């Protein structure tokens, strides 16, 4: 029973830790499927986390925080889009710039506004997203295994967690089953063909970049307004890069993205759980090794030793119309 409750607790925190990864991963998925490489996921989440916490603090309303996070993240996404699509600039460089700008601006503005070393004042009450209890959670809690699983792992999260799952479903469905999704995938593989068919390459790519901005906004706001109670400097702590790793791991597909993010979230939860724990025979568990696992796994995958991760063919290439 003790093992079960520990397992439930780890799964529960794994889900919480997976959500920002999932939002960022889906953001990257949209962007890269349209042919725009985005290594600025980290930066967009960070600005969204800051804007979200600042707006939630000012208004006392978590939804206002979410809106502000999405707006600011989308603004940064448009800067990246303008550089990558309209200016045909280097997409990697633009992503690096977005990340650095985000680190600098959030700390600078946060310090100037709140004078608390870059953090925002703690959020309380309606300024945060509260956990939701799904119907029937309390009624079946007593049922062995299924009960606690439903009541603690699936129920009892903030609304953003369920939005993340919904976003996965929508992403998978739109990309695979709609005309827009087909065109978007085509523009990431062969933009010239899409252009020849009379469809705007720029329009599709901008749409994808904006969607990426919105999703990063959700992920960032989740960090500061739902998971934590306020903004801390550099609170994304590499999550945008883990999401990038997850995206490669999932081979740019939505359902595998969900699975990978859950796995990486679970790894994170396990590493937190094992902090300082001494396992008989092994000694103290090297927590850093578990934290580094997503990065190491991604390199192994990229090396092609376990399957092959092939990005959309036109990703990273600006489209130049032939005249």
């Amino acid at each position, binding site marked *: 029973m003790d093992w079960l409750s520990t397992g439930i607790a780890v799964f529960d925190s794994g889900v919480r830790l997976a959500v920002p990864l999932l939002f960022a991963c889906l953001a990257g998925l949209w962007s890269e499927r349209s042919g725009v490489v985005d290594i600025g996921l980290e930066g967009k989440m960070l600005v969204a986390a800051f804007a979200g916490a600042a707006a939630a603090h000012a208004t006392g309303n978590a939804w206002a925080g979410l809106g502000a996070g999405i707006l600011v993240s989308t603004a940064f996404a448009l800067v990246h889009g303008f*550089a990558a699509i309209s200016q045909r600039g*280097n997409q990697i460089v633009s992503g690096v710039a977005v990340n650095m700008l985000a680190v600098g601006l959030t700390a600078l503005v946060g310090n100037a506004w709140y004078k608390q070393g870059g953090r925002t004042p703690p959020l309380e009450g309606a300024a945060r997203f509260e956990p939701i209890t799904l119907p029937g959670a309390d009624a079946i809690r007593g049922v062995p295994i299924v009960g606690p699983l439903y009541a603690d792992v699936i129920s009892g999260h903030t609304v953003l967690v369920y939005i993340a799952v919904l976003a996965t479903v929508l992403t998978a469905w739109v990309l695979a089953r709609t005309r827009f999704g087909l065109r978007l995938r085509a523009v990431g593989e062969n933009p010239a063909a899409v252009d020849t068919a009379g469809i705007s390459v720029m329009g599709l790519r901008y749409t994808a970049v904006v969607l990426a901005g919105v999703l990063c906004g959700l992920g960032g706001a989740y960090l500061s307004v739902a998971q934590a109670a306020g903004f801390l400097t550099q609170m994304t702590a590499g999550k945008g890069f883990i999401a990038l790793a997850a995206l490669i791991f999932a081979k740019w597909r939505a359902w595998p993205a969900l699975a990978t993010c859950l796995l990486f979230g679970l790894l994170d939860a396990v590493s937190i759980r094992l902090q300082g724990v001494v396992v008989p025979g092994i000694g103290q568990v090297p927590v850093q090794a578990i934290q580094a696992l997503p990065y190491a796994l991604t*390199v192994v995958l990229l*090396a092609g030793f376990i399957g092959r991760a092939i990005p959309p063919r036109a990703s990273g290439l600006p489209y130049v119309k032939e005249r």
Partner: protein
Amino acid sequence: MSAAPIELPRWVDLVLVPMLAVVAAFFVAGLVVLAIGENPLQATALLLRGALGSGEGIGFTLYYATNFIFTGLAVAVAYHAGLFNIGGEGQATLGGLGAALVCLNLEGLPGWLLAPLGILASAAFGAAWALIPAYLQAKRGSHIVITTIMFNMLASALIVYLLVNVMGRAGSMAPETRPFPAASHIPFMHVVLQGLGFPVPASPLNLSFVLALAMAVLMWVVIWRTRLGYAIRTVGANPTAAVYAGIPIARITVIAMLISGALAGLVAVNEIMGVQERLLLEFTAGAGFIGIAVALMGRSHPLGIVLASILFGVLYQGGTELAFERPAITRDMIVTISGLVILFAGALDGIFRRPLAQFFARRKGA
């Protein structure tokens, strides 16, 4: 990776466009300063006075610039081979590990032997950390941008593990090693100059700065005056042509990345062997990323990189002084400006190039 080049006169391409990018970056940074309720002109004056207004300030400026010369050259060498090395941060971290292993384990050696060994170890460890991404790019086609990002994260996890669990100083909670032996110390510039009869104010500036300048000259020689440099530039400019010319792309890719990683690793010589004299967390302080800005601004040319590094040295040192005087403008301002420089010099340079190209084409036609 980028679209068809825009034809421009050489001086416009090498001087005017980077200058315009910096001006644009500072203009936007000025707006940010205004937005947080400070006076940008006053801030600039304070910054310049802090960086260049005293001998000590100049010493600090050049000390910061040393790191950026190393990382800027690192990014530039890879860039000439058509590779984008974002891994400078991780390679520099590993350079620190190399320096620490040599300095702590070969304690009895005299300084004339220990310090050069430390320098070599820094370069070798930096190069080794670049080797796997380089090999994977060359042989398996794994995108070097992603692998070097992953290796940055792996490096930071590794160094935390080693400093907390293995190399940490016994009986101390701080994640750092015990101090290095005095013999491994890279001499301070003010000590050297004092000995030569030129007294200058004390600062952390050390002989690593000379090493950095030497590396800049060496890079110029290698890239533009040797067969290897020619091969590197050919692979970067046109890999298909390189294949027809019989240049082994895979080998050149690996060599360019090894040089790049070694240069990034040398940051440890300045920071770890020159100033801190012990290995500690995050001694790189973002130098790997500033190197990207420096290389973009310097147009991957050693002279441009040295000048851009000094500009960023001014920003770092002046920014520190500025943060004392005007607490609202923290050192994060420098990160912001770096981000803006990267944006304008590297990704949005088309907004300067296209109108300039039109202007000069029209003048030529008239």
